[in-house]
């Protein structure tokens, strides 16, 4: 392995900020598959997602001097991807892209979940991933995205909150509701 590849994302981003364009390719290679997977699960459109992922990387490059290297690179890149994909959904009007600041669960995430929402959602991790893969399209984007970021991209609540710019507690609420939706899909 190239010694340069052992550097973490933030160190590589710092090099790119200083003008090392080739270092950016390392970041592209590290995240290309992840971004492609994220795009497909977000958009369900193979052709578009390829173009959009490239757009994400180009935007990341153009704006990389706005990245704070004391923070994690991954949520920053996913945030760019999120914006790009949401815009793509808006253009297609395929479904309502939920990015409202004044969503009820952003305003009051601490409001208790209903009994059906707190029902047992104890699905095994691998089962849940399988169900997610097959049923993602049936779940609204608002709940789909936290599920994808949590189960496939293995982000924690705070990182998901940073990508979606929503309260950490809202992440929990959406994950729980998403899991309930999945469970209903499984039982039906």
């Amino acid at each position, binding site marked *: 392995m190239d010694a340069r590849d052992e550097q973490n994302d933030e160190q590589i981003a710092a090099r790119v900020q200083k003008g090392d364009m*080739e270092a950016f390719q390392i970041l592209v290679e590290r995240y290309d598959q992840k971004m492609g997977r994220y795009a497909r699960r977000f958009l369900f459109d193979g052709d578009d997602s390829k173009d959009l992922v490239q757009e994400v990387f180009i935007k990341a490059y153009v704006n990389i001097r706005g990245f704070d290297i004391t923070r994690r690179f991954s949520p920053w890149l996913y945030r760019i991807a999120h914006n790009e994909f949401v815009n793509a959904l808006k253009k297609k009007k395929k479904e309502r892209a939920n990015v409202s600041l004044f969503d009820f669960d*952003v305003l009051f995430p601490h409001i208790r979940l209903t009994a059906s929402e707190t029902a047992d959602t104890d699905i095994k991790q691998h089962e849940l991933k399988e169900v997610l893969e097959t049923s993602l399209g049936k779940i609204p984007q608002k709940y789909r995205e936290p599920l994808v970021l949590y189960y496939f991209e293995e982000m924690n609540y705070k990182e998901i909150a940073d990508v979606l710019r929503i309260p950490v507690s809202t992440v929990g609420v959406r994950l729980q509701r998403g899991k309930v939706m999945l469970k209903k899909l499984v039982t039906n």
Partner: protein
Amino acid sequence: MEQHYTPMNETNESRKNGRVVDVIKKGNMRMRPRWQFVAQGVLLVVAAALLFLLLLYVVSFIIFILDQDGAWSAAALGPRGWSLFFAALPWGMFLLSFVLLLLLANLLKRYAFIYHQPLFYFLFVFILVTTIAGFVIAATSFHPGISRFVTDNVPVLGSYYEREATLPASVHRGEIVAFMDGGFVLGEASGATSTVVVADGIVFVGNFYVGDTVLVFGSRQADGTIKAFGIQRIATAATTTVPTTTVRAE
């Protein structure tokens, strides 16, 4: 020549299958310089600060004019006072302050310290802070100073400060000219005088002086007298000598 970044342009085909770095090189795309991000951040903070100051101004203005109208005192006078209080509320200003608050939330939502917490907390804290600060500002000479200047010089803003014309029909502002049995004579801004009689069963305990500026809450009778169910002093007489009387009706 340097190409400014344009998303999804006609070079899409050439991008496909190429290394992203090659596409960037081919398109001669450049990183945005750091100063642009710094300037953007500074502009955002300045805009948020200006919005916050405007919000403070509007909230303190609302509190100031409610005080001028005697609406706070009206609210303490029971159900009849509450209706006066709600009638005196400047709803347009309330709406404006709410819009300013939402604009501020929208402007600051990119910061983690804002979006990590439920939006409700942000709104609650800002409403609390601006209300407290609004009361503090309203108690200073800030608004009276502006009022003196804008009433004659600034048409639109001046009319907002000139609240006499907008007082509800059952609120009368004036100066105590003389006392009489069970009431007093009120000298109004128009130069006219009205007799104020205190409604039966209403008790006002407190010293009033000739020359005090007061708000009288009560309806005007057919004979022109005002039947007061509440009186609020909003300015004491310029020269307070001996208390002339205690207004009392039982």
